[in-house]
């Protein structure tokens, strides 16, 4: 066969070309990686070995006005197993025995939670400290077992303050999008309700970062020297306006009832001294793992423990807003303090409807002041008619009803303050009776208020018309010791003249101190109390019982607003409750045991 051989020099040349080609390809490959892609591959190599570890800041603590704990942090211990250090037939059985699990359950959790053989896989969260002590002391029995500590929130349990403290939980996707991903990341804890949520930015502090060097299998090889760690900055501590003593007295006062709420405010500055929603729930359950059963029980409970009654519970105000109706009529010059209207014979005929007074035998003829003192409905019906729906609506609006107070808590409800436009929309133009104003005038009908709004209105009455915005944060203490005390903010002024206010204040006094007052039983010789009872008709059940008390009347320092759901007359149920709270306040103020002893009898 021709042309099949090649001379030796040619073959040598081809051989050389092959060698050069291969060495060139290899060199090209080296240049490609080590020069052209050097930077990117260096970054990848750094990413390989450096693990960014967040340093968690201590969340700010929350104290009452006297520096007593409301929320603080406690250590929570998680027990884990490092698979690579586990000893067969020793680690798992011993740990299972300690935890009271069976070995299979421990094995299952180990498999499920293991990220790498060298990283601790959590077995149980929040184990009691005694177990931690056993594991530390008898380390030889637990090879490969490690304990991680994290801080969780502790809410002082007998305060029932979850309506203002709120609680924290893992950030949700929706919150991540809303709050931004700079300060929060998946798994961050965030305030879900109450002060925890409103002041989350202050309380949470700033995460720090540490850089550690890890091996391919995730084993830590110590700190990475190329980058300085940034330390975490602890959160801001808060001093609240709450007084734990008064708060506790509220809890005790409501304890015997099914459902209700108390708000206590200092009318001179809007500081909320106590606030409780009953029944509540224990905010601590959110600190460890909340079981599905427990959560279902709470959210399906017919008494609605998750409802934040003081700021978002909506109730008809009942007679408590009769003062507002009278005040409006006085301002508009429709009546004066000595005006007498048609006498009360137990009811009032309007059109073809008969509106009853709460007292079937009637009050007879009353002047304005005594009409309030005895809470006469017939008198109020007539005042309401003089005012008309929209004028009444205007005064309710000016007194802060139908809109949120702007307290430093999330989730406040605005309530409902209807006007003729509202009724037009609801029933159709001219399809509703003007008689509705009779209901509104006595705080019934469509009007809905929150206990906080009502307390705010009475603060205005007690403080000569000036309403301070209710608030809970009294002082912020920064980690560097710096303190910030926000000044009380004036929210608005009640639309009443000095003369009207004096008259309304006098009627508050008569409710307790007058011979016919509906809350006569609160009367005490040691300090003066004023107030207003209310019995709100409730279409869904028994009447709600209201009382708003003010003390001491000469120079009011505390306004306590109580609602007890489905409990009947305000004078029977809510008034004594308020009396207890006010007594606690006054006892503390005067510092005398005498009060406690003397007033004890007058309550009953």
């Amino acid at each position: 066969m021709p042309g099949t051989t090649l001379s030796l020099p040619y073959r040598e040349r081809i051989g050389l070309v092959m060698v050069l080609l291969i060495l060139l390809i290899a060199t090209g490959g080296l240049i490609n990686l080590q020069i052209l892609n050097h930077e990117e591959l260096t970054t990848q190599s750094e990413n390989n070995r450096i693990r960014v570890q967040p340093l968690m800041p201590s969340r700010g603590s929350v104290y009452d006005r006297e520096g007593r704990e409301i929320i603080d942090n406690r250590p929570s211990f998680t027990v884990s197993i490092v698979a690579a250090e586990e000893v067969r037939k020793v680690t798992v059985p011993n740990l299972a025995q300690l935890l009271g699990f069976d070995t299979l359950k421990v094995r299952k959790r180990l498999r499920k939670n293991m990220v790498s053989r060298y990283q601790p896989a959590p077995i149980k969260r929040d184990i009691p400290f005694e177990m931690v002590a056993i594991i530390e002391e008898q380390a030889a029995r637990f090879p490969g077992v490690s304990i991680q500590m994290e801080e969780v929130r502790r809410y002082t349990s007998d305060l029932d303050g979850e309506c203002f403290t709120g609680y924290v939980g893992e950030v949700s996707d929706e919150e991540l999008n809303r709050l931004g991903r700079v300060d929060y990341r998946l798994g961050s804890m965030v305030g879900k309700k109450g002060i925890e949520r409103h002041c989350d930015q202050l309380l949470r502090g700033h995460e720090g970062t540490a850089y550690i060097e890890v091996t391919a299998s995730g084993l830590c090889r110590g700190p990475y020297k190329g980058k300085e760690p940034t330390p975490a900055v602890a959160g801001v501590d808060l001093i609240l306006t709450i007084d734990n003593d008064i708060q506790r007295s509220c809890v005790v006062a409501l304890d015997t009832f099914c459902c209700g709420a108390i708000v206590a405010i200092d009318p001179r500055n809007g500081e909320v001294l106590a606030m409780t929603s009953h029944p509540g729930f224990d905010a601590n359950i959110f600190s460890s793992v909340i079981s599905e059963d427990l959560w279902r029980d709470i959210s399906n409970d017919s008494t609605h423990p998750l409802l934040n009654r003081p700021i978002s519970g909506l109730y008809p105000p009942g007679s408590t807003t009769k003062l507002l109706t009278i005040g409006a009529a006085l301002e508009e010059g429709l009546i004066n303090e000595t005006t007498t209207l048609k006498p009360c014979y137990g009811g009032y005929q309007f059109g073809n409807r008969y509106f009853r007074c709460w007292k079937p035998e009637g009050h007879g003829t009353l002047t304005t002041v005594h009409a309030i003192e005895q809470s006469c409905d017939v008198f109020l019906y007539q005042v309401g008619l003089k005012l008309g729906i929209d004028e009444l609506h205007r005064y309710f609006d000016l007194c802060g009803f139908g809109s949120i107070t702007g307290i430093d808590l999330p989730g406040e409800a605005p309530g409902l303050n209807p006007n003729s436009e509202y009724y037009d929309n609801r029933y159709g133009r001219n399809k509703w009776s003007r008689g509705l104003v009779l209901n509104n005038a006595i705080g019934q009908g469509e009007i809905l208020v929150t206990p906080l709004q009502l307390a705010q209105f009475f603060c205005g009455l007690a403080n000569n018309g000036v309403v301070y915005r209710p608030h809970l944060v009294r002082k912020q203490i920064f980690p560097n010791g710096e303190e910030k005390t926000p000044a009380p903010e004036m929210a608005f002024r009640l639309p009443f003249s000095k003369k009207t206010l004096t008259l309304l204040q006098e009627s508050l006094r008569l409710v307790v101190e007058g011979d016919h007052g509906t809350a006569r039983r609160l009367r005490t010789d040691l300090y003066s109390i004023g107030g207003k009872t209310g019995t709100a008709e409730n279409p869904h059940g028994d009447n709600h019982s209201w009382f708003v008390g003010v003390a001491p009347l000469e120079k009011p320092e505390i306004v306590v607003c109580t609602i007890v759901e489905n409990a009947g007359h305000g004078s029977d149920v809510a008034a004594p409750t308020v009396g207890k709270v006010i007594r606690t306040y006054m006892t503390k103020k005067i510092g005398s045991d005498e009060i406690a002893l003397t007033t004890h009898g007058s309550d009953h």
Partner: protein
Amino acid sequence: MLNYGDLDWKVIGAALLLSFIGILLIMSAQHHAASSFERTYYLRQLVWLGLALISFVVVIHLPLRLFDLSAYLFYFVSIALLVLVLFIGTSRMGATRWLSFGFINLAPSDVAKLAVLLGLARFFAYTKLPPASKQRLAFSAILALIPIALILKQPDLGTSLVFWVILFSLWFWSGLSPLYLLLILSPLVSLVAAFHWLAWALYFLVLLIFLFLLRPGMVFGVLTVIANLAFGIITPFIWVRLADYQKLRILTFLDPGCDPRGAGYQIIQSKIAIGSGGVWGKGFLSGSQTRLDFLPERHTDFIFSVLGEEFGLWGSFLVLVLFGVIFYRALRIATRCRSRFASSLAFGSAAIILFQLFVNVGMTLGFMPVTGLSLPFLSYGGSSLVMSWTLVGLIVSVHYRWQEY
């Protein structure tokens, strides 16, 4: 006695330098290992280097005539060892590759490389058949195919490729035109091209034109066409039948990023190690990829990645240059020496080393698949080192005795 001044000290020096660099790299590769056994790999490699040098010294003292005479005997012994390993071999990671002699594990496939090289060199030295004759091609192919079949049975695809390389390089060196080599290799191209029918059709057209112009003879031409057709049709058929993990391996080779945690991991980590080394490297014992376990098999298959990371471009290039010295010298010697047998030995030795270098370095750089071929002189492993030094011994011996017939 030999006149030591006449030895090829350039080749010896290059091989010695490579071996010592290898020991340094093995030391660095396992410096942070948890077990003291792994940390002292480099000491054992040092002992192996001693044994390899003894083997080298023995080889250069033996007359070439002895290799010539004992070539077939040696061949049959190594075939026997290969058969033996299938029955009583030691298994590691699913492959039976080693014969255990107490503390030493011998890989018969390394011995077989030498044996096939000697056998083929002897056959090509004495045959009177023309280079492209069918009998000559067939007989030499059978010499290579027997060990290939035995090694594929182990299984060890990477090492079996070395035998193909010995066969093809000696076919070429004994005078077969490279065009014929291309035709013989053409079914392999078919195998790859067949993944896309248009690519394969174009390739097939080119092949036909090539055959028409070259006219290699009726039988050869027809066989080539049939083989190409067969491979082209078989490929898609085989692909469908491959198990998922086998497909994954092939796909990973084509695109390592497609499975970064699994099969592509080694290649990605190797590229990161070499690339992050840059021009000057991170320094001895300071490669983070090496130190922190990101590099897999770093003292054996991926030793070149350790080199690239810690000594950068200049270190890697230096190693390539040292290899280049050996190849260049071997080629010169193969061309100059008078004996056809000796010439084949020198050329074949260089070809084995060159092929392993290419496949191994290509793998660490990410343009060759993971085959498990070690890097001569540098990778940890006794029989590989002894084998490499034996080949160097042959090259030096041929150089020393270039005038012998």
